[in-house]
């Protein structure tokens, strides 16, 4: 095989077939993909959850993961956030010519490993190779399908006054880990991305109580943006307490240095759950028993007044608004 990806690898010709068969079909080994038909045919019964996402992270390798792991986790998590059991993914690679074959293989390997952990199969895919400069090394587009169990009805508009807000662990790990590797910003940290598939955590939570009102993974825009979305969709306010939000000391330190607020920094392996108060402790206990929920905590509750607002009690005992993220997070001057 060639040591770099060439335009010919996306041409549909022999090199393209070689790439698909040797790199993808072998790695993702499953009967649906191996048929190499134009589409995968599957049987379903029940309510389907269907989602799509694109991944353009730079750099494509970062502490704690890479773009492949991220693509699987991100898609699986979007399905899990509607309570669905994730089943099948599609995967489309847009590759910048010149990408080392080794790097592609490593990413394919981590897609395979993460898919296996998440219990999903890659059943269809596509590869395009574009001229140098037309993409940044590698972009991945995915779609995902899952089945929603009976009796589960989770949506962003279902938060009710009195509900408790649970966060599954520390915030900001992914955003700071990725930023630490970026050209022009590199700083050294032991921090790793929290990138993880959350299907098993959600399954545990639903076992504890199927009556979960909202689930959302606070990815780009961070916890603050997610809570604002829920408050607006449900026409309620969310009151959180700063002291109860778990944040690693390294994340706090990096945020201070860069002038960020951890509430706005991205996560890839965390979720926010809005649950009835009576079930909160049971769900929290179930979460803490799962490897991706050991740091879970109740961080606040839902209120009727000031609909659409998120308000935080600070460590001084005062209250302040927590708004959505505006634009990009940009490091400050001093």
């Amino acid at each position: 095989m060639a040591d770099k990806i060439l335009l010919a690898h996306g041409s549909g010709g022999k090199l393209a077939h070689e790439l698909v068969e040797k790199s993808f079909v072998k790695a993702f080994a499953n009967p649906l993909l191996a048929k190499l038909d134009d589409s995968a045919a599957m049987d379903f019964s029940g309510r389907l959850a269907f989602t799509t996402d694109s991944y353009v992270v730079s750099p494509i390798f970062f502490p704690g993961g890479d773009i492949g792991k991220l693509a699987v986790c991100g898609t699986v998590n979007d399905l899990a956030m509607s309570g669905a059991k994730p089943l099948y993914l599609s995967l489309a690679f847009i590759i910048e010519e010149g990408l080392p074959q080794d790097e592609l293989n490593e990413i394919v390997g981590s897609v395979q490993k993460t898919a296996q952990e998440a219990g999903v199969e890659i059943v269809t895919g596509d590869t395009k190779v574009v001229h140098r400069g037309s993409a940044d090394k590698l972009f991945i587009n995915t779609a995902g399908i899952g089945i929603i169990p009976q009796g589960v009805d989770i949506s962003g508009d279902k938060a009710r006054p009195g509900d408790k807000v649970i966060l599954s662990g520390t915030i900001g790990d992914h955003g700071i880990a990725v930023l630490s590797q970026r050209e022009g910003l590199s700083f050294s940290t032991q921090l790793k991305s929290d990138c993880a598939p959350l299907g098993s955590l959600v399954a545990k939570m639903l076992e504890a109580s199927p009556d979960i009102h909202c689930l959302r993974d606070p990815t780009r825009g961070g916890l603050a943006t997610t809570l604002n979305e829920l408050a607006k969709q449900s026409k309620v306010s969310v009151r959180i307490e700063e002291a109860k939000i778990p944040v690693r000391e390294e994340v706090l330190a990096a945020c201070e240095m860069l002038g960020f607020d951890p509430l706005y920094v991205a996560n890839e392996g965390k979720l926010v759950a809005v649950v009835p108060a009576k079930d909160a402790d049971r769900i929290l206990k179930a979460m803490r028993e799962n490897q991706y929920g050991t740091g879970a905590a109740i961080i606040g509750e839902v209120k009727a007044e000031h609909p659409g607002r998120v308000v935080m009690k600070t460590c001084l005992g005062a209250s302040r608004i927590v708004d959505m993220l505006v634009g990009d997070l940009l490091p400050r001057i001093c």
Partner: protein
Amino acid sequence: MKFITEFRRSELAGGLISQIHRRSKTSVRFMEFCGGHTVTIFRYGLRQVLPQTIEMVSGPGCPVCVTANADLDKAIALSRLPDVIITTFGDMLKVPASHSSLQKVKADGADVRVVYSTTDALVIAERNPTKSVIFLGIGFETTAPTIAASILQAKARRIKNYYILSVHKLCPPVIRALLDSGEVKLHGLICPGHVSAIIGSHPWEFIARDYNIPCVVSGFEPLDILQCVDMLVAQVENGESKVEIAYRRGVRPEGNREALKLIEQVFEPCPAEWRGIGEVPDSGLRLRKEYQTLAAEFAFDIEPEPAYEPGGCICGDILRGVKTPTDCKLFGKACTPEYPVGPCMVSSEGSCSAYYLYGGDFGG
């Protein structure tokens, strides 16, 4: 010692807050000069927990906010030149200049890159020998030494394609200008922490001596600011005016001598234009003659578009502490962080942005 969580402990904060309430008898107005302090004050809702005797006003200590439109326009004009890479700190990207912003020219194809330090800008210059790399030197005494160091590094490493647009500003002269204007009456000044880490606390002595205003240098955590306010209150109630440091872990009275030496070697004071305040003598820094070939204004021929200030925007009055963001007709309506009209709404350290993001019905 943990340098962040230790300074956010609510039980300690509670003690300080009660002490301030007990001590404060006289009605006073304190100014926090620095935008970083403004952000902490709003982010933690500090104004809500202070007694009614204490009024806090925000000062002009946000480097992005005080940069004159004419200087921003130069940066825009430079970014439009062929084979130029503009490197800058992140919060400059969104600031509206007279007719555009770096974010917009970037979308139009200009090569504008965000860096965290000048070291990174130098690396970009080394990796792109056929391009001219211009660093936008915006900031106070805090950032000036790192930019001075990068200039010396560029010389030492024979990097010939590295330039600086220096719009640096110095803090003590502008505070003197503010106090001399008599527009705002102050009973205490929270002196900037990072600036003082470089220049020390001595340069603030004139404020205590000539204007009888108590001064305390503060750090940026909520407990730092509470301690600073408590010390200011103590001075007021004792009828004193002196310079104290409530940020011993970062600031020495004499400052950072190495950093000061670097500034002195590379830069010389010059008059500078401050948004809303006007020209203040000796409040800017320009490259000394021997480094002038690295000054972007000299190396490149640019004709910035004529500067224009948006109508209705009162950023200038806000920067002087004469008005507050809620006095502005545009605030929260025509001017929001998504669609900023003035720089105080766009900079992460701007007063309007802090009022808008953290204030609303609850903060303030």
